[in-house]
């Protein structure tokens, strides 16, 4: 083969490879359509959020237990997709609250012994905030964690390397490594339930409606009225994570 035909051959082969690669990707997008296993659920019609009403939480721990049961979270030693914290705050020193979360509040809280009666004390449930500008999604090297089209941050267990970078990047401490799969795990907002019209397990069993699911794209959802009429905050707003977990009645001492 002389110089010019060899060059010609390489050029044509290269062109073929590039074009067929592009075509196959395009075809997959066309063929994707609606997911087959949730025929009544269209992702783009939903934008999920959570509302936590701190003024209603009684620290019963139902949510912690329900989450562990629903999502098969390891009971030992201390992995939690959601947990409840108890704050004891001296009103004159809100920068140094005393916080505890015994086994994540799996068995509720033991009785409180207060040395100083002049305190305020309350419970704060925590979970993945399903951030719209999630720092954990940003740092994943292989695209194993992502923000779904309906606003839930999920983990692809088949792709996760277990590098733990996302665990470091989450400002809220909601991720952990599942020792049984060596991949990252976290609250999925019970994606397998909400896509079927059910409530997340933690919302289902909360006796005081301190935890509520919201769908920001649904005009009839009560979350819109709630956000309009209450003073809500997100955790660590200075991090600008776009957190979609709104807290009502959040005290300044909450970390």
């Amino acid at each position, binding site marked *: 083969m002389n110089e010019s035909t060899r060059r010609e051959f390489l050029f044509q082969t290269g062109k073929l490879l590039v074009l067929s690669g592009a075509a196959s990707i395009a075809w997959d997008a066309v063929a994707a359509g609606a997911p087959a296993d949730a025929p009544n659920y269209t992702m783009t019609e939903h934008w999920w959020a959570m509302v936590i009403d701190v003024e209603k939480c*009684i*620290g019963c721990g139902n949510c912690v237990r*329900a989450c562990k049961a629903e999502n098969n979270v390891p009971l030992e030693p201390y992995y939690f997709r959601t947990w409840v914290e108890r704050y004891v705050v001296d009103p004159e020193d809100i920068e140094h609250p005393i916080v505890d979360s015994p086994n994540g509040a799996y068995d509720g809280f033991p009785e409180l012994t207060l040395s100083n009666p002049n305190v305020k*004390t309350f*419970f704060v449930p925590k979970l993945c905030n399903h951030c719209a500008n999630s720092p954990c999604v940003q740092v994943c090297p292989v695209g194993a964690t992502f923000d779904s089209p309906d606003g839930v941050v999920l983990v*692809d267990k*088949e*792709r996760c390397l277990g590098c733990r970078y996302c665990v470091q990047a989450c400002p809220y401490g909601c991720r952990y490594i599942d020792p049984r799969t060596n991949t990252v795990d976290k609250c*999925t907002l019970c994606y397998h339930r909400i896509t079927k019209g059910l409530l997340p397990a933690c919302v289902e*069993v909360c006796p005081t409606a301190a935890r509520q699911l919201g769908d920001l794209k649904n005009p009839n959802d009560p979350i819109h009225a709630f956000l309009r009429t209450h003073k809500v905050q997100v955790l660590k707003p200075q991090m600008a994570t776009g957190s979609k977990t709104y807290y009502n009645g959040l005290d300044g001492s909450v970390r």
Partner: protein
Amino acid sequence: MSSRQDRAHLVRVAALFGGALILFFVARAVLVPKDFGIYGHYRAGALADARARPIAYAGQAACVECHGDVGDLRKTSSHAHVACESCHGPLATHASGDDATRPGRPNGRTTCMRCHLASLSKPAKFPQIVLKDHADDGPCIACHQPHAPKL
């Protein structure tokens, strides 16, 4: 300007690198999952994986389908907004008929006290009791009907 012969060994190096690069692209075309990148930088199948988990809690609506009488009793009670499974635990297998066993009753004391034991941390308006002032022996259900607890 160096002669072509003097540069020949560099051409071999370039060919080696070029070959490796081609191998890389071929490997990529084969190994990257076909559904990667459709919705974003992730495998679209992961959404289906997340949806496919088994369900443990049936949800209140499922309970009331069979236990309508309890549902009616609770509708006007103070426990109206407490889901059945808050006290009775996950019952999806029972509700779907897969599990023929009858779920046992929750332990009265522990279940009730988790919510109702007095604590300074609980909202003041929430009904809570100090055990020794209230009735420190005997089960709660001796006086309170759990589905309509107000006396």
